Structures are given as structure tokens and as C-alpha cells.
């Protein structure tokens, strides 16, 4: 089989890129592993999140905001093609603080970013009482929150499903269940082999394989300096409306369940949840929203974030094999609109391209 673009990785990142390339009239084949893979696209929290991104890296803050701004029309397209409601809500979100000191420390960081961006960075500091008028169910231990009007959330599983439908609808090939084992540059093209499947020849190859890039990256001349970072999540029974907006640690999903998360642990390729972490998440959620003390927990799970050394995405074209690209990030949901949108101009050598120079691998060279 021959294709213009082979995308290794059928998660949110790979499918978003595929969708953008198909919209540009390219032929695309997406190569996805099986369910034994570490599937961040199935375990994530579902935030479309601006706040706290790029506090020390204005280019990343702006890249994130551009994706958030493009999200509504992106989601509308996917909803129309797939006929699945994505429940995108972009009505602002919070990072809740339990102490005045931490709230104040964060406020200073955000003010620093705002001044580096010439004043163009939206956030508000809300004390307990101000937050209480917006979110009446917060507990007495809550000191306040940082509020960003550009934050939001989406149903990430429906987004994944919707992208799958959209990619196929536009004529893309999506091959699942065959782990890519090797990718070999052959002249100006690439030969890709996978378990139990015919090899594929592609003019360009995009490595969007999440943690799979750790082993496949070097074959294409990438360093792929990424590591897994574990996060655990709880979901409760479906409840009447308890909160109006998401915050970075707890949100109410469109069907009523409360999703609690935001743990992080450096435990390698381990995606097992543990009682101590889950209990800690639950206790903190009850401190924020005391009514959760009587909520039934339905499920918990762990998943692995894909982290670069500085937490920013990596967008890198291979110096050795110019038809090869490496795309990875921790925030595949938030950046989906950028990946389906302007990043396609970079992958297709368009006349006008986004400036992704801040996200190259060479930033880690010292």
C-alpha cells in the first residue's frame, strides 16, 4: 500500500493530524496499535485548558490559546460529520486553591506571564466569597481560585470516536490492532512494517505514537526525549448538577458523573491505580466540594501522560530524513484543534506556516 502520509499513532493526536491532512486533500493512512498499548487518548481528563500552560513559555501559552480559540469550529465540524455530541463547553474554568499563600504565589506567576505577553493574558483571582457565588457547593476550606475565561472541557471519548468517524468519512485509512515495529527510510520515502500486516510505503511519515515514540523515534533520527507520567482518575455515580464550570482537579461530565483527577507520579510504564493515591484524590475533592462525601465512586483508573523534559509539545522535522515528522504532547485534547488546523500547514510545506520553532527537539541540547 502507498500513501502520501503515514501517521503512526491512532490516538487523539494522530487522528487530529490525519483529519487536518485529509481536509487538505492528502491521502492518509493512520496506523494504530492494539488495546495493549498505553492509550492516553482513552484515559485522559478531557480538559480544553489554557490556564497554567506555558507560564514560563509564552510561545506555548499562545499556541494553547490559539487551539482553544479554534476549538468551537473544529468541534462543530467533527460533530457534523460524526453525528456525535462532543459536549464542548468553553465557559471558563478554575484552578482552586486551598491556601491564600498558594493562590497568591500563582497570581504572581500569571502576572509575570501577562506582562511578557504585553498584557494580553486573561485571568482573574477569585477569593472564597467571589467563587462561592459562582460555585455554591465549594467547601469552607477553599481559599479561592484562579479563573480563566478561555478554559473549558469536552467529552474526550466522543472526540476520539468522532475523529475516527471523520477520518474514515474523508477517505482516510485507519488500520488498528497492528503495532508498528519498524520504519525505514528508503530514498525519499519510508517503509513501515507492523505486526501481522502488509508493509506500507509513504512519502511522509508522522510519528504521533505517544510513548511508542521512545522506541520508534531514533529510527527516524529523533531523540524523542519523552517519559511517562502517571495520573489517576476517579469517576462517581451520575449526580445532579454540583458545579457550573470545570476546574483542573474536578469536573462534572456532561452525563452527570464527577471526574476527579490530577495526580502525577513518576513510576515508569506503570498504569495501575493504587488505593493511597485514589484515597488522596477523593479526600481533596471532598475538601473542595463537601457534598462529594456521599457520592458513590464507580470507577478509577490510571493512565500515562507523555511528558517532554519541559512539559511542552515537541514538533520536529527530521534533519536526517526530511519527510519524517515527530509530534508529541501532553495535551492532545487541548491542542487537537491546532493539530487539525494550522499544524497541517507545517506538515504540508504550505506557503504560510505556523512558527513552531519554540517546540523543536534542539531546545533540549545543552
Amino acid at each position, binding site marked *: 500500500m502507498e500513501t502520501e502520509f503515514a501517521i503512526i499513532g491512532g490516538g487523539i493526536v494522530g487522528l487530529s493530524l490525519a483529519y487536518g491532512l485529509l481536509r487538505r486533500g492528502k491521502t492518509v493512512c493512520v496506523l494504530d496499535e492494539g488495546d495493549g498499548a498505553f492509550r492516553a487518548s482513552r484515559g485522559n481528563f478531557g480538559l480544553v485548558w489554557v490556564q497554567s500552560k506555558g507560564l514560563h513559555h509564552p510561545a506555548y501559552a499562545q499556541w494553547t490559546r490559539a487551539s482553544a480559540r479554534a476549538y468551537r469550529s473544529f468541534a462543530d465540524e467533527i460533530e457534523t460529520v460524526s453525528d456525535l455530541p462532543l*459536549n464542548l*463547553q468553553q465557559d471558563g474554568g478554575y484552578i482552586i486553591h486551598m491556601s491564600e499563600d498558594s493562590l497568591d504565589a500563582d497570581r504572581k506567576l500569571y502576572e509575570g506571564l501577562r506582562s511578557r505577553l504585553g498584557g494580553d493574558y486573561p485571568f482573574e483571582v477569585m477569593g472564597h466569597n467571589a467563587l462561592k457565588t459562582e460555585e455554591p457547593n465549594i467547601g469552607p476550606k477553599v481559599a479561592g481560585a484562579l479563573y480563566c475565561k478561555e478554559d473549558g472541557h469536552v467529552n474526550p471519548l466522543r472526540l476520539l470516536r468522532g475523529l475516527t468517524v471523520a477520518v474514515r468519512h474523508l477517505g482516510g485509512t485507519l488500520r488498528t490492532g497492528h503495532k508498528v515495529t519498524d520504519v525505514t527510510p528508503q530514498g525519499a520515502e519510508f517503509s513501515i512494517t507492523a505486526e501481522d500486516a502488509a508493509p506500507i510505503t509513504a512519502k511522509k511519515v508522522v510519528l504521533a505514537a505517544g510513548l511508542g515514540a521512545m522506541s520508534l523515534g531514533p529510527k527516524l533520527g529523533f531523540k524523542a526525549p519523552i517519559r511517562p507520567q502517571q495520573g489517576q482518575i476517579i469517576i462517581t*455515580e*451520575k*449526580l*445532579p*448538577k454540583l458545579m457550573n464550570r470545570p476546574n483542573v482537579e474536578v469536573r*462534572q461530565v*456532561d*452525563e*452527570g458523573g464527577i471526574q476527579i483527577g490530577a495526580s502525577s507520579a513518576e513510576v515508569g510504564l506503570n498504569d495501575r491505580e493504587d488505593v493511597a493515591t485514589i484515597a488522596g484524590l477523593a479526600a481533596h475533592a471532598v475538601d473542595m466540594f463537601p457534598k462529594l462525601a*456521599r457520592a*458513590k465512586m464507580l470507577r478509577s483508573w490510571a493512565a500515562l501522560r507523555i511528558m517532554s523534559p519541559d512539559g511542552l509539545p515537541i514538533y520536529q522535522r527530521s534533519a536526517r530524513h526530511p519527510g519524517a515528522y515527530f509530534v508529541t504532547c501532553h495535551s492532545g485534547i487541548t491542542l487537537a484543534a491546532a493539530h487539525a488546523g494550522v499544524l497541517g500547514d507545517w506538515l504540508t510545506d504550505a506557503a504560510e506556516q505556523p512558527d513552531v520553532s519554540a517546540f523543536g527537539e534542539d531546545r533540549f541540547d545543552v
Partner: protein
Amino acid sequence: MFERIGHSATAQVRFTFNGETVIGNAGDSLAAALLAAGHKVFRDTPTTAAPRGPFCMMGSCFDCLVVVDGETVQACQIPAQDGLVVTSPPVPRAQP
């Protein structure tokens, strides 16, 4: 629909379900007492508001959920007792 068989009750228990008084036998599970009193629908599902009642009666299916003392519980897993205030779980309104 459901009829009691075999044994005669040693004592009765009295509780309310959505405000209506229900009389069961001591030793009934909450689900059994409600079914015997003619209540087939215990709740509506949160997502589609479809009616649900007990299916397995042994703690597996979670279809018999009710609210007792502010907590959602499986009606088949707790005994019917005097004075319980039992309600159907609220159906959350879908969010925008």
C-alpha cells in the same frame, strides 16, 4: 405480579418510598419489600430517564438503586427497616 410464598411474617416493617407508605415483612430486603408492595420501577436512569427496577436481586446489576439517608444504595443489599425514608435517585439534568 409478585406473591409471597410459604411462610408467614413474624413482624412487619413500615417505611416510605417517594412519600408513600410501604409495609413489608421483617427480614425482607428493601428491594423485596418494594416489589411485594407493587413497586416495579425504583428509578429513572440518569442519562435517558428510562425506568429501572431490580433485575438480579443479588448485588450485581445495580439497577435497583435508591437513596437512603442521602446515599445511593442498592435496594437488594440492605434490609427493610421501620422508619426508612427511601427515594428514587434524582435524574440529573443534562448539562449544556
